[in-house]
């Protein structure tokens, strides 16, 4: 409808836009600009051309941080999204599931820092819950310095991530499953399909778009991972849990390499944009080929 006066639309949108510009838009372009600068935060920055980018692509720790975050994303696709989907399937065919749903969602809303400090204790080699259980069961040799060993540190963090977020994806998939029409499921059951067949052959294909969104969330969220890594291991041991964001924070706030850190930020941004773009293409092509 027509605004009641010429100015009211602008009065209504300007507070939101001003805050958004000041907080997101200006810093976004500023970071892009800084990525071409040589600057330690004091004095005036000097133009560095593509030097920072050149350095990023040859920086072994930065490249390693991508490998690590790649492993983390792959692992969490299973531990968070797939586990969440299976849990949703199990719970959807049962009644009185409220207690489970409530319990499984609790970790999602706790601050990541609380989760990280708690799990640092759970992984503690001396009194940690995991080693205590392992010893009680008589597998003394399985007791580990979970977060201190380069072989187990990254996977230990992935596991915590699964503990936190599988409940979140359970909630998302449950919302999706509730939209699957009952009559389709009932007619399949009349034809003699088992619960697991109904789930994998009918329900899962029908909530394909929910699965796609979940995978996208898991991947883009994974690239941004920070709290868990920073608090639990700080990137160590030997950079085996260094991820792009922890490395960025280290470059900017400890080594005072603001230009270099900014170039890492720009590269991560591009990666997120590319993944988002590829996903939207996949979804479009998917929509035309499968119809219900």
């Amino acid at each position, binding site marked *: *409808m027509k605004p009641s006066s010429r100015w009211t639309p602008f009065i209504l949108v300007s507070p*939101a836009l001003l*805050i958004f510009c000041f907080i*997101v838009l*200006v810093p976004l*372009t500023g*970071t892009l600009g800084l990525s071409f600068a040589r600057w330690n935060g004091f004095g005036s920055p000097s133009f560095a051309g593509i030097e920072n980018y050149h350095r990023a692509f040859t920086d072994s720790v930065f490249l390693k941080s991508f490998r690590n975050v790649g492993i983390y994303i792959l692992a969490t696709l299973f531990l968070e999204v797939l586990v969440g989907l299976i849990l949703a399937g*199990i719970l959807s065919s049962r009644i009185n599931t409220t207690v489970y749903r409530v319990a499984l969602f609790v970790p999602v809303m706790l601050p990541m820092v609380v989760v990280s400090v708690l799990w640092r204790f759970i992984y503690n080699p001396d009194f940690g819950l995991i080693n205590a259980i392992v010893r009680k069961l008589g597998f003394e040799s399985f007791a580990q310095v979970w977060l201190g060993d380069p072989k187990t540190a990254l996977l230990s963090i992935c596991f915590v991530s699964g503990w936190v977020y599988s409940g979140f994806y359970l909630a998302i998939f449950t919302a999706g499953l509730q939209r699957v029409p009952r009559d389709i499921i009932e007619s399949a059951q009349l034809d003699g399909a088992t619960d697991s067949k109904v789930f994998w052959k009918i329900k899962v294909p029908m909530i394909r778009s929910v699965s796609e969104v979940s995978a996208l969330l898991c991947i883009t969220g994974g690239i*941004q991972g920070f709290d868990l890594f920073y608090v639990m291991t700080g990137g160590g041991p030997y950079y085996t849990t260094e991820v792009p964001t922890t490395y960025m924070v280290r470059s900017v706030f400890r080594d005072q390499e603001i230009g270099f850190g900014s170039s890492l930020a720009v590269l991560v941004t591009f990666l997120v944009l590319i993944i988002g773009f590829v996903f939207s293409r996949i979804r479009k092509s998917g929509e035309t080929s499968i119809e219900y």
Partner: protein
Amino acid sequence: MSVYSLFYVTPLFWMIMSAFKSNGEIFQDPLGLPKSIDLSVFPRAFKAAMLDKLMINSIITTASSALIILLCASMAAFAFSRLNFKSSKVLLGILTIGLIVPVQSYFIAQNQLVEFFNLKDTRVALILPYAGMGMALAIWLLKAYLDSMPKEVFEAARVDGCGDIQTYFKIVLPLLRSGIATVAVFSILSAWNEFLLAIIYIQREDLKTIPSGLLTFSQKYVTDYQMLFAALTIITIPMVAVYVIFNRQVVAGLTEGSLK
């Protein structure tokens, strides 16, 4: 299934149990039950971690940023959804950038900006960024709510002589109640739990929020495990209580916020 859900509950149960055990007991028998129930550790941990300060800071920061988001976003959503004006498409397009780029893309220059305006170690240094970062998604969700409503409602108000601003207060805000609840849930939770900016912008102990304050506390009392378990428990219990009461709204708020 009940065995499996133990996996989710055991860590939290172990945390509470360990808060009742002395350091010696924790080391000797990590799985054992506490020898006695001594509640005095909780007030001690509460004081040592300055949890009163942390909680007040978190409440002020979270409430202010959520209020700013709700007010500004609902106003903007109304304009974008219902009013025809020239630059509406362009401005909305600019806002969608905020839906895509993560905080990593801009926090480095944002830090310079915060420094430039002398905002470091002030509450505003967290309130404004939390508000700005949640704004795009909030506008988007609230606009979707308004789009789904019949246009006659708004036109009727116009016929009755309401200007846009009046329509906003009298019609839009009351209609948006459930949308605002959803936006409030994820704005509050994300501000309450935010960590990256909190450790960068606030160094002063008495201004820290719960996540960054807890980290400092855990570094200061590295070996006083009982105390740390107690602090974790004090932070966790009220959140779990609020969640159990509002679990429907919380789950809906978080899932809806991410699906759209």
